[in-house]
């Protein structure tokens, strides 16, 4: 067991080390001592305020990674999380601002709308795949861009009418917002974060992670999902309906994707604006790869990315190009898949060697007996 965990940690560790190495090289080239830079990042990131901010940044990445991982588990690549969460957040904010009811119910309705819109947007790709055989990678890429246009259209033409400077949906009523969790810090005896509120959506993200793990490993659907991902032919032969699986998986993945933007929206912004945070969808792919589609692994990956995003701020203040953080993130994606490939090949070779050694001693024995 420990050996297995150790092995599964090798690849991400190599990848992160390699990415840090590349970034260090870049830093050396521009005359910055990498140890100084990373030291600054670490010192800056270990205050209460930073920890809250890191977690806040990790939440959407984690949710996004779960959405991507759901697809990965059955060999589907939902590259459209980006479009799904933005479209979902827009409609959830727009509709949610139209009424005021009892707080938790209001929040719940917004969450359901977001999940529904995300599922519907991803469902288009799922539907096209099962009825017309359209590859989901291509269709979700196209749907991303169509989604961006839809957002521009709704924000610019319908909600505002093109008059205001910053296009935004109407502000959500207070009842819809999720209260913050800064009291946890005081409860644990740390100083309270200043200027940052640990977002209450954290709890929903944790529930989502547990639900993901339960769904994939403890339900029949999860079994069929994994079976279809590992060997589609065998799964079909044993009675799994592949078309239904594709559609359900896309709907689920899109539903999870719909929640990506909500932590920021319900914890901070209270509206969908033109400059609503983007790229969570693509970074989520990186986090899912880093965490190997594992609920805990992805949480660690999301926290790592959150740490890098947060501590980039201190680099900027010290005149160190903070873009090295993005370089690290980009290199990690590539390095982690390559590292997994190398570790896998190494394991395979070792098994082959062990098997041949075993049979060798057996055949030697046989020779002795014959002699």
């Amino acid at each position, binding site marked *: 067991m420990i050996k297995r965990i150790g092995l599964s940690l090798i690849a991400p560790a190599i990848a992160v080390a390699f990415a840090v190495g590349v970034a260090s090289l870049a830093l050396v080239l521009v005359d910055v001592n990498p140890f100084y830079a990373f030291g600054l990042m670490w010192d800056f990131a270990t205050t209460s305020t930073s920890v809250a901010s890191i977690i806040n940044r990790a939440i959407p990445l984690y949710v996004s990674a779960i959405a991507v991982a759901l697809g990965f588990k059955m060999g589907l690549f939902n590259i459209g999380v980006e479009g799904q969460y933005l479209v979902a957040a827009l409609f959830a904010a727009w509709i949610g601002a139209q009424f005021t009811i009892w707080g938790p119910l209001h929040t719940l309705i917004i969450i359901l709308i977001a999940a529904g819109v995300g599922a519907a947007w991803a469902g288009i790709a799922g539907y096209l795949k099962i009825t017309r055989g359209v590859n989901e990678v291509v269709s979700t890429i*196209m749907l991303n861009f169509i989604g961006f246009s839809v957002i*521009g259209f709704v924000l610019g033409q319908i909600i505002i009418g093109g008059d205001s400077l910053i296009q935004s949906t109407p502000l959500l009523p207070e009842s819809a917002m999720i209260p913050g969790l800064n009291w946890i810090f005081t409860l644990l005896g740390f100083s309270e974060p200043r200027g940052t509120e640990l977002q209450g959506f954290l709890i929903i993200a944790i529930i989502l992670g547990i639900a993901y793990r339960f769904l994939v490993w403890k339900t029949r659907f999860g079994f069929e999902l994994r079976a279809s991902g590992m060997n589609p032919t065998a799964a079909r032969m044993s009675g799994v309906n592949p078309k239904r699986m594709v559609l359900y998986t896309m709907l689920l993945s899109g539903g999870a994707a719909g929640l990506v933007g909500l932590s920021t929206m319900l914890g901070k912004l209270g509206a969908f604006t033109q400059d609503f945070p983007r790229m969570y969808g693509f970074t989520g792919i*990186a986090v899912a790869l880093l965490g190997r589609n594992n609920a805990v692994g992805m949480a660690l990956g999301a926290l790592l990315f959150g740490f890098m995003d947060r501590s980039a701020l201190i680099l900027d203040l010290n005149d160190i190009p903070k873009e090295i953080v993005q370089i690290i993130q980009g290199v990690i994606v590539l390095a982690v898949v390559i590292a997994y490939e190398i570790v896998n090949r190494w394991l395979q070779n070792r098994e082959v060697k062990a098997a041949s050694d075993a049979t060798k001693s057996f055949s030697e024995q046989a020779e002795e007996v014959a002699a």
Partner: protein
Amino acid sequence: MTVDVREPSQDMTGRVKGWNTATRWMAMAAIAVLILAIVQQIEGTNQLTSSSTWSSALRLGAPILLAGLGGLFSERAGIVNIGLEGMMIAGMWFGAWAGWQYGPWTGVALGVAGGAVFGLIHAVATVTFAVDQIVSGVAINILAPASVRFLSSVIYTPDTGGGITQSPRIKDFIKTFDVPWLSNWLVDIEEKAWFFVSDLAGILGGFVTNMSWLTVIVLFLVPFSWWLLWKTAWGLRLRSVGENPWAAESLGVAVIRMKYWGVTISGAFAGLAGAYLVVVSQGIYREGSTAGRGFIGLAALIFGNYNPFGVLAGAGVFGYSQALSLRAGAVHALLLLVAVGLLVLAVYAIYQKKFANAGIQAAFAVGFYFWWATSDVVANQIITATPYVITLLVLAMATQRLRMPAADGIPYRKGEAH
């Protein structure tokens, strides 16, 4: 077991054969111009066929075309390349940097090199390490903008006139030219506003007036790519590793090397697309100004059924719709154009006795007609979405007719023949 569903008029090379087909294309082009002319008469605009629209369609379509051709080389070698956008960003950045330092043609050269470097990274990941090609492409799309941003923050200090998100303006563009005599003659005819004749002159005029030398090269790359891929032994080898690398391997083709060629050339094309944006259109690298053109190129590639001339057609459609979206009145006319186009398709479908299709097309034609009749302006966002919607529709309608290389996207490892 794959059933070959190619059109009978196409042979194994994907080439369109025979004089008959050429005549048919000419006739179709004439009908298209006629439709444009009629729509213009009704709408009361001349922008659908004006030489300025077509010349800007050419400028907007060229980078899409290049990205699509880039995708062609990679996917024909069996490697899916969704990193085109990132490679294009790299090409654009290096194009702008070298263009600013040494002039536009050096910009082109370095843009090509910059794209090729990221193509090479994609090749190392997908060919040598056989990792998931989509994942690698996503990584390129994250890595390339981050890397050039880092370079910007280091190189473009305030005194250069650039900054983290944009480069200084390049000193001069690639030279443009008018084809002597022909250009003036076509402009004269265009100004006469004769029905059909002037429209034709306007369209042709777009190709001979204010033409950039780089655009000429870009257009030349279409038949060149076709020749390279379908008429040389090298091209046959490249395509063979995209169709069946194991069979190719058994016949002594250096599969790995061919895949490296395909993906690196792909990056070079995407880099050229980025450089084109700088040295012909914008004169500056600005973050986000590739605006998804790499992905539209991918769309053009699919639209064009993995064939250089098809890519040209796709890039043409997308470039034209972008050019129209920049012209206020023209977008509205586009609705009527789509309605008439669908009507023609419906009539053709009836002629082919495909009544269900005809019904759907006619219904959409009526829908677009009413949209046109009841509205005055069309929001720009609808045009921005057009290439992507068209691609989805093409994919949904014509999946049976589209044929991607058989081993596209499948990881290959040497000696694993099966």
